[in-house]
Structure formats: C-alpha cells, structure tokens
C-alpha cells in the first residue's frame, strides 16, 4: 500500500532534472535562508511576500513574451523603451480622449513597434539584436520628444485601479495581471501548435522550414507579442506610478532576459520554460527584497546579489 505511493515519488525524485530545475531549488533555498535570518524584519509578513510579487510583476509580464522570443532564437532589446512610450502615450490619450482610447493607444504602441521589428527580422532576415537596439533608441527618443522629457500625470482613477494601482479583493491587481500572463504563456508554449512551432523555429530554423512551419510568421509573431506585452507592462507602470514617463522601463531588458535565462530557457533557442521564467523573476525579486530588508548598502546589495547569482548558476551544473 505505502509502496505504491513511495515508489512513484522516489521515481519522480530520481527523474527530476536538477540542472534544468535549479531555479526552483535556488528559489526555495534563498527563501528559507531569508525567512530564517530576516524573520524579525518582516520578511515573512504576507504583505511583504505580496510586495515581492508586485515588484516583479511587470518584469514577469515582459519576460513571458521574451521567453517566446528567446525560444525562437531571437532577442528583443526594445521592451524597456516600448514600455516607456506606451506609458506616455496612454497617459496623454487618456487625458484627452478618455479611458478606452487611452488603453488602445498604449497597446497600439506595442503593436506598431513590435510589428516593425518583427517584420524586419522575419522577412528581411536581419539580426533582431540590431533591429531592436535601433528600436530601443528610436522609441525612447519619440517618448522624450512628445513629452519634452516631462512626466504626464494620470488623473483617471479607474485606469489606475485597473492597471496596477489597485487591488482585486485582497490580491494586488499587478499580481493578477502577472499570473494571467504567465498562465497564458505557459499554456500557449506547451499546449498549442504555435508554442511548438516557436521552439522548432528556434531549435533548427531550416528543419522547421522543411517541416512546413512558417518560420517567418513565427518570428514576426513573437516580436509582435513582445511589443504588446512590453506596452502592457508600460501601462502598468503608468497605473502604478499614476503617470506616464519615458523612463519607465528603462534598462528592464537586462532584468527580463536574465529572468528568462535563469528560468532555464537557452539563449540559443529551441527551449522555452514560462514557469521557470516566472521563478527567475521571483528569484531576483526575492534577493532584492531580502537584501534591502537586511539593511545592506547599495554596494553590498550588488555584491551579494552578484555572488548569489554566480553561485546558483555554478551549483546548477555540479554533478
């Protein structure tokens, strides 16, 4: 009787691929470490745990789309800029034309920027690194230009409540958005033809083409998706900070890519682990939160954070 439960469990443990799943182990290990050492500082306070989620929500949302981009062996460096432009465009449109036009305008930013990058990468076959690097500058430049580098305040409280500023019952709205994005992403990646095609495209472009996968369309779609998710993230920044500003999201590309790679997705394409990505983002958020609570200086935080990442990565490959 007991054996029938223990055996499969043991089996599962044996078959558990340590290397691919290091992020979950790392997450749990660091969590326990902080829970023990920082209990007094309110680390385990439910509210603080929600804070961690809240802090990584926008990164996670962008990282879900980035998981698809990287799985298709491409990259998107323009997400931070797109978030910034979407935040100001939403704020400006919102103030002039109202809620729905504001939301649509913000998303449109993502659609246009993503479609341009995607189109160039898919059909002209140029490296996404360069295209999206150019897009990074172009988009943030536009955001500065139209706002004269000034913030655009948002007065519409409905918008703020929906987009990151409010709670849905006891659950922060940001958390809901992030979870929806992650669940959607995980299902699409693992349970749909599109997800399969994305990974085939990244795994072997030529073979995928021979098998009838429309690899150009796949590349276009992932970059489009990345643009839209980045725009959504920018709109959440806008809601959370009650204003649009070109700087919202600046530099996020590195954190987002780091979350994806920590989560077990290979930079060389072919693999894509959406849930891992979430934990990659949470892992970094957890460390940041813990180190701030521990009262460390900025420099000490950087040192310890860097060391933890190196350590986690190194341990992941030990036999």
């Amino acid at each position, binding site marked *: 009787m007991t054996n029938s439960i223990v055996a499969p469990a043991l089996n599962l443990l044996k078959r558990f691929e340590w290397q691919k799943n290091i992020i979950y182990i790392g997450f749990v290990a660091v969590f326990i470490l902080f829970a023990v050492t920082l209990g007094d500082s309110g680390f385990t306070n439910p509210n603080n745990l929600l804070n961690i989620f809240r802090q990584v929500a926008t990164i996670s949302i962008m990282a879900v789309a980035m998981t698809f981009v990287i799985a298709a062996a491409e990259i998107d460096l323009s997400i931070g800029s797109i978030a910034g432009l979407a935040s100001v465009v939403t704020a400006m449109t919102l103030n002039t034309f109202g809620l729905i036009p504001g939301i649509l305008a913000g998303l449109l930013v993502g659609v246009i920027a993503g479609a341009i990058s995607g189109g160039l990468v898919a059909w002209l076959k140029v490296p996404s690194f360069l295209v999206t690097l150019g897009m990074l500058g172009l988009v943030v430049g536009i955001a500065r230009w139209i706002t004269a580098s000034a913030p655009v305040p948002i007065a519409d409280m409905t918008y703020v409540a929906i987009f990151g500023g409010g709670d849905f019952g006891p659950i922060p709205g940001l958390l809901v958005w992030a979870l929806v994005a992650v669940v959607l992403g995980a*299902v699409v990646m*693992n*349970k*749909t*033809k599109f997800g*399969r095609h994305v*990974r*085939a495209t990244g*795994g*072997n472009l*030529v*073979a*995928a*083409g*021979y*098998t*009838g*996968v*429309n690899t150009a369309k796949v590349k276009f779609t992932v970059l489009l998706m990345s643009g839209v998710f980045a725009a959504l993230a920018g709109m959440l920044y806008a809601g959370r900070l009650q204003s649009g500003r070109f700087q919202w999201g600046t530099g996020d590309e590195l954190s987002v890519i780091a979350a994806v790679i920590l989560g077990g997705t290979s930079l060389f394409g*072919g*693999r894509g682990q959406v849930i891992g990505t979430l934990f990659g983002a949470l892992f970094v958020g957890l460390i940041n939160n813990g180190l701030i609570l521990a009262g460390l200086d900025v420099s000490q935080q950087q040192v310890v954070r860097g060391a933890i990442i190196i350590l986690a990565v190194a341990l992941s490959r030990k036999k």
Partner: protein
Amino acid sequence: MSQATVNAVQMQGIEKSFGSNPVLKKVDFSVKVGEVHALAGENGAGKSTLMKILQGVYTKDAGTISVAGVPVEITDTFDARKAGVGMVFQEFSLIPTLTVAQNIYLTNEPTKFGLISDSKAKEMAAELFEQMQVVVDPSSTVENLPTALWQLTEIAKALAQDAKVLIMDEPTASLAKHEAEALFDLIVRLKAKGIAIIYISHRMDEVYRIADRITVLRDGVRVLTESLAQVTPVQIVEAIVGRTSAAHLVHLDRSSKISREIVLEVENLSSGTKLVDVSFSVQKGEILGLAGLMGSGRTELLNTIFGVAKANTGTIRINGKQVKISSPREAIKNRIALIPEDRRSQGLVLDHPVTENLTLPVIDSLKSRGFLSTKKILQKSLEIIQQFAIKAAQPSIRVGALSGGNQQKVVIGKWLATDPSILMMDEPTAGVDIGTKSEILDLVRAIADSGKSVILSSSELPELLAVSDRILVLKDGKVLTSLQRNEIPNEEFLQLAIQGAQK
C-alpha cells in the same frame, strides 16, 4: 613478430553505458596492420560508440586498448591523435563557418613565419582532393556545400592527419558510385602503405569489395569476427539481424498497380542555373526513381517542387490542377512530403525529444479540447517508433543522442505519418541498416500500392533499381532520359546512362 601479425589496434572487454542504457557489452575488437576491417551491425548496435571510444570522444567504462602493441589510455581526441588514430565521423566534425581547407587542417594548420597560412592550406587541400579524384573547391565555406561534399571534406580531413589507424564511419552514405570508387582506390593505396582501416558500412557490396575481415555487433555484443573469404553474405546478414532473412534488393513488377491517372505534372521547371527546363510526370501508384551524378540536380528538383528552392519558370499541376508552391507549407497543403537529404540540418531539431520531432508535422491532429494532448503525442510517437523499429532509450530522449540510422528513421517516420499523396524522398536510406532498408523499401511499395505516388532520389543504384517503376536520369540540371524499369537490363546499363554515354 612480423609486421603482418601485429595488431594495429586491440580493444578488449570494452564496456560503455549512457545513463542506464548499456550500449557496449565486453566488446573485443582488433585490426591488423595493413588490414581493412569492416564493422557492421544494425542501427544503434554500438559501432560508432565503439569507434568514438577509440578516438577519445567518449571514455569507456571498462576495458583496455593498445595501439601497435602498446597499452594506451585514450581520454580525449588529443591522445588518439598522438597514438596515430584518425576518424571520419558519421555526423561530421566540420565547422560550418570555416572553409573546406580550414576544416581539413583544423588543429593542424600549416604556418608561415609563425602565422597560419590559408593559401598553403588551400594548396595542400587541393592536392588531397586530387588524390581522391574528386572536385571540391577548398576555399568554399562548408555551410554552403551539399551533403556529399561535406562527406568528401570529412574524408579529406581524416586523411590529412597521416594516421596509422583510420576509422571511417559510413564514409559513402551520401556518395555516388563515382566518388565511392575513387575512395576505394585510395583505401587500397593506404592499405599498401601499412595503414590499418576500420570501415563501418551498411552496404554489403562495399564490404566485400574492400574489406579483409568483418566484425558484427548486435545490441552492443560482438557476435561475429571472420575473414570475408570465409563467410557468406547470408551469414553476415543473419549475424546482423539475429535471424535468417532474405534481405535482397530485388525488383518486383508493379505495373498492374499503376493507374494511368497523372498525379503530378511538371513542365519546363527551372531554378537558377541548377535546374533547366525539367518536364516529367508521375502517375498514380507509380514509383519514379531519380538518378544522376552528384550535382546533377536531383536534390534541386525535389526542393523546387517542395517550395524550398525558388522556381524561375515552369508550372506544376497536381491532379490536373495548376498549383503555385512557394513554400513547404503550400506543398504540405497539397499533400506533398519531402524526406530531405540532410537529416541533421534539414530533418530534425536535434535538441528536441524524439516525440516532438516525430509529431511536429501532424501536431494539429493531436489535440484534445483545443489543446495539444501529451497523451496523444506520446501514443502517436510510440506508434511510429514501433513501426520503424526506432531504437531509442525512451521516447523523450533528445533525437541527437540516437544513432545515425535511427535519426534517419525518425525523419522517415515523421513524414510518413502525414499520409502524403505524393511522397518525395532524397537519399532516404542513407545510413540505414540492411534489415530496415528492405523494410523501408517494402513500405515504399506498399505506399505506392495504396494509390500514392513516390519520387525517390538515390545514389545507391541497386536500391533504385529494386523499387523504381521508372527512372528519370538527370544531368547538369536537365532531364537526360526517362527509362522504364524493364528497359534497364542491369546496373551497369544504368550507370552508363547516368554518365551520359547512352541515349
């Protein structure tokens, strides 16, 4: 001890497992100086693994190796080189971004004033190819070359090492007769120089042609080592497959199964300079063979029909209706399938599991409630694995970890699962063992019998002659002639036709 009796290589009690999968079980193997020793066995029997241990790519779990009578410990390819062992790899050890000459002399670069000299490497490579009697441009980048030239480069690379022991893992798998003949001549010359050669092949005629002795592995166990003079092909086949089997490539007349209905009609098809004004048609139930020299345009023709290569002019009609095919997707929509020439770059996502590779083209049909069903995917995969006797430790293993022949079976299985009405195959049996080869050919016949049409390109003439109802001979991208199977009396006749000596 006289030269002739010294073992150039002696491997004893070699064992190797990958994870919990034992691949070699106490294998003994030896080659004499100046001997050509064939190594045979089913796909996945462990031939490549045994040789990679000798080459230092894998480390053995147990056993001993001595080279020229001296025990050696080979832990990496460097040790193997020092011991004088060189290898032609089955899955190619070439760097796609380097040129042919750069690849041939990789780690062995000729230098001038302390700096490496590509021009010198180029000259030396050209010389080498001349010896091999083949034409390859040493300064072209490898990634731009067709598979056959990869193979020639790989051979040249092994030769350039001046090895005392030369391992050749299926060196002729994608070579045509002419290049293979040149290689055999070379082997004879090397042998005369006292070089020991280990020759892995699934082609019985080659083995008899050049080898002195043969060793057969089955499921990681050595089951036979014998001088070829003392063993019959039937005995060898029996050792390989473990049962008596008449794996003969004989032609069966299928004219009664061919309907007059024309399924595919190609008219004046041209693509770049590689394909000029090609016209032909295929009937329902017919198996059309494509013959030609290397570079004659067979692959180009199939690729153009499949929409991989761009057609400049010409029309394609399917069941009488003109179609426009500019991508594989459209070809697949028209129920055409292509088993491509190069399994590794065109057929498979090597890092993905066997299951995912097998089900990629049919993924749409493996859903439940709108989402992909893991259960259905596994079921379908197991079905194909069983049908083609694919040897994989688990269905979830990455396809790159399969043996060469089993990888090829995955490609064939994945395409046959789409149930195409026009099946195009480009060198489909490259690297496939004898038993499976005849099974595949039987399957091709069965597919045609059920009213489908097949176009099969192959450099192995016996195979082509065994299944084709008609053979289209290409040369320089043009149709040279079209021969009914019963107009071809023997292989030599076809060989001459291919070379253009016959009209």
